[in-house]
């Protein structure tokens, strides 16, 4: 059983190694994509991932026959638990155990990761058809999948952190996939640095908790009676890492820029899995967070600010991918709100549905962008006839995002709203109001993007896109994943009873009312003038929202510019003080030696006179001193 557990992340890792080392060999002609290498890379990418998916399914089957050991809806569905004892690394103080564990939470999240990764890999075969670096691209996706599965199945905090950091690395590599464009490589560096800032806190949080508990094993940490002060400190530090990875306020600025990467990457890493890892980690360590009230209050503030702000920003964006990126921040904040309100079940339920429909939306956006030849909503329009399958699947995705029944988002949003309404903490009313407003704005921006992309007059410049040669909508490898993801996005909510949940009439009605209000407002604005952007509803706020509330500018003024000025000062000090001192010493020595050189007249008798005078002086001194 534990071997199976190790194989689930191990297979994609092997695929990454094979893809990086094997797919380039034998070398084709330089500078031209080698079709054989591409085919091999695609096999390396997809086959091991399928193996992981099958193993996950088998693991789920095994767990469903176990005995219930813990609370939570996943425990109702998959009550069993597998924990593997693996080698212990002795560090001198606290040992690191290379242990893996699987319970309902891990298997559900791991299953989501594997399914989305598989869909993205299949989709990439078509999407990255003409890319010369396709083999390394798929290998990095495999490495990312492996790292994410390691995070999900890790039984030790240090092991979890390893996966966490490798994910960050893969995110950096894949955002910068088209690094020839300077803006892309800058976005990659920004994402790396901002998430790293949070990861410092995350690592120290692990140290704090591990030291207090006397072990890094998650089970031991959860069981240890950690004093409350230490617990609050440790969880707050962890929260910094979570805010960085999940792009929450105040570290959210990297995610919209991360859309510079290829669209499938945005679907996998920056919508469904990596950014959700922060939520997963909190859920995994939830008993600790429940014991640290101030941390959950801080999380509530972050969530309340993040979900509404990001939703408003999404409403004003013109770039389709940035709309989805801000929407991701907003939806992750909704999950964080559920966690802050005390319900990890609602958060994980929303994580699962959101992972599915947001990946679907991004993959659809990829097809749309390929067809329109531009990311900008202003260049799209009237695409529903040209892209019928994408239209249907993306409509399902937007319906799920807006929380309309019967799509999955309706059920999970309702679960979150109910959790907040019944939740804990003094900030509950603020959180609930923010969540309702967010539901309205979410409906508005989803409708706006949907209308701007698929309805109205066609605004694409002729010849801008590059539709496939066969003349169809897109290659089959791109359309099948859409259909495969659309089905659970539409129907996953009906699995709710299996999770032990139910629809709650009152909150569901409130949420629906808010969403329909937002949808209706945008619809009305659009009906009045289909040429105009419905974002004009925001009025004078529009410019502020479009620039993400100027957070980037504030950070530039508060952090970037002072640091650059300091660096400039240090550089100048190096040149002006240290270098000048070194050169001054050299110059002084040269000047003094020029004086001394005057004694070198070439007259040997003069030298001898000096010698004699010196000898006499020494002799006299010796005699005088006795």
């Amino acid at each position, binding site marked *: 059983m534990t071997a199976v557990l190790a194989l689930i992340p191990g297979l994609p890792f092997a695929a990454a190694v094979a893809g990086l080392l094997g797919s380039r060999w034998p070398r084709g002609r330089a500078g031209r994509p080698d079709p054989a290498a591409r085919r091999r890379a695609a096999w390396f990418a997809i086959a091991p991932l399928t193996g992981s998916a099958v193993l996950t399914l088998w693991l789920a089957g095994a767990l469903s026959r176990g005995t219930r050991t813990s609370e939570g809806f996943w425990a109702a569905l998959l009550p069993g638990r597998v924990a593997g004892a693996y080698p212990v690394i002795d560090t001198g103080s606290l040992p690191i155990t290379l242990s893996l564990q699987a319970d309902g939470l891990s298997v559900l999240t791991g299953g989501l990761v594997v399914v989305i990764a598989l869909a993205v890999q299949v989709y990439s075969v078509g999407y990255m058809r003409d890319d010369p670096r396709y083999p390394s691209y798929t290998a990095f996706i495999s490495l990312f999948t492996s790292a994410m599965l390691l995070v999900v199945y890790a039984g030790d905090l240090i092991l979890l952190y390893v996966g966490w950091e490798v994910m960050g690395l893969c995110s950096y590599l894949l955002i910068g996939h088209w690094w020839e464009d300077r803006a892309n490589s800058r976005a990659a560096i920004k994402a790396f640095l901002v998430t790293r800032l949070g990861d410092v806190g995350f690592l120290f949080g692990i140290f704090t908790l591990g030291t207090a508990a006397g072990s890094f094993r998650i089970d031991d940490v959860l069981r240890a009676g950690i004093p409350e002060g230490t617990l609050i400190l440790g969880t707050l530090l962890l929260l910094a890492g979570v805010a960085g990875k999940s792009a929450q306020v105040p570290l959210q600025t990297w995610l919209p820029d991360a859309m510079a990467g290829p669209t499938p990457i945005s679907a996998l890493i920056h919508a469904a899995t990596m950014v959700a890892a922060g939520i997963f980690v909190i859920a995994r360590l939830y008993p600790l967070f429940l014991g640290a009230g101030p941390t959950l209050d801080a999380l509530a503030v972050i969530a309340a600010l993040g979900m509404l702000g990001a939703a408003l920003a999404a409403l004003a964006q013109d770039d389709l991918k940035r709309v989805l990126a801000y929407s991701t921040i907003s939806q992750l904040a909704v999950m964080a709100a559920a966690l802050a309100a005390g319900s990890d079940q609602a958060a994980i339920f929303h994580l699962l549905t959101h992972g599915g429909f947001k990946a679907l939306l991004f993959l659809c956006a990829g097809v749309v962008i390929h067809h329109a030849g531009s990311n900008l909503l202003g260049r799209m329009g009237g695409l529903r006839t040209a892209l019928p399958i994408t239209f249907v699947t993306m409509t399902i995705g937007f319906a799920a995002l807006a929380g309309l029944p019967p799509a999955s988002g309706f059920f999970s949003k309702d679960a979150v709203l109910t959790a907040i309404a019944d939740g804990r903490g003094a900030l509950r009313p603020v959180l609930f109001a923010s969540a309702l407003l967010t539901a309205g704005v979410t409906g508005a921006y989803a409708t706006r993007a949907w209308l701007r992309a698929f309805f109205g007059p066609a605004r694409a410049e002729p010849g801008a896109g590059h539709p496939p040669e066969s003349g169809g909508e897109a290659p089959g490898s791109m359309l099948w994943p859409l259909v495969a993801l659309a089905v659970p996005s539409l129907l996953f909510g009906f699995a709710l009873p299996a999770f032990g949940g139910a629809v709650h009439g009152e909150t569901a009605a409130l949420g629906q009312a808010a969403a329909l209000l937002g949808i209706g407002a945008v619809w009305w604005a659009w009906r009045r003038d289909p040429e105009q952007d419905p974002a004009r509803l925001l009025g004078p706020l529009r410019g502020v929202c479009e620039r993400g509330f100027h957070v980037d500018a504030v950070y530039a003024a508060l952090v970037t510019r002072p640091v650059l000025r300091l660096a400039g000062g240090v550089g100048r000090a190096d040149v002006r003080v240290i270098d000048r001192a070194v050169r001054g010493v050299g110059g002084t020595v040269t000047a003094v030696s020029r004086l001394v*050189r*005057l004694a070198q*007249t*070439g*007259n040997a*008798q003069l030298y001898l006179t000096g010698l004699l005078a010196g000898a006499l002086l020494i002799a006299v001194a010796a005699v005088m001193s006795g």
Partner: protein
Amino acid sequence: MHVVYPVVLSALLFSIGVYGVLARRNAILVMLSIELMLNAVNLNLVAFDIWAGDRLHSGQALALFVIVIAAAEVGLGLAIVLAVFRTRKTIDVDRLRALSERERADDDAEART
């Protein structure tokens, strides 16, 4: 005989030698002055050998060494003086300043004269 007589004599000889080395211009006379200094030392060595009553007469032995070395030195020195005279047409040590440290270019011209 009191030891002071040979010591005073050798001091006078040495002083004359020092004066010659430092003040004479002719290279041959400089070398002769060096011989004077060496012989002053020899005189000292022999005198103190007797005065100290050294049974092994190491002072006299050392004086013989100095004489041998002085002969070799004179041979070598005269050869150098000859060679200098052949190339520079002068043995005036005041004008042999090719090794002086000067930035002006005229030292080469001076060395050639």
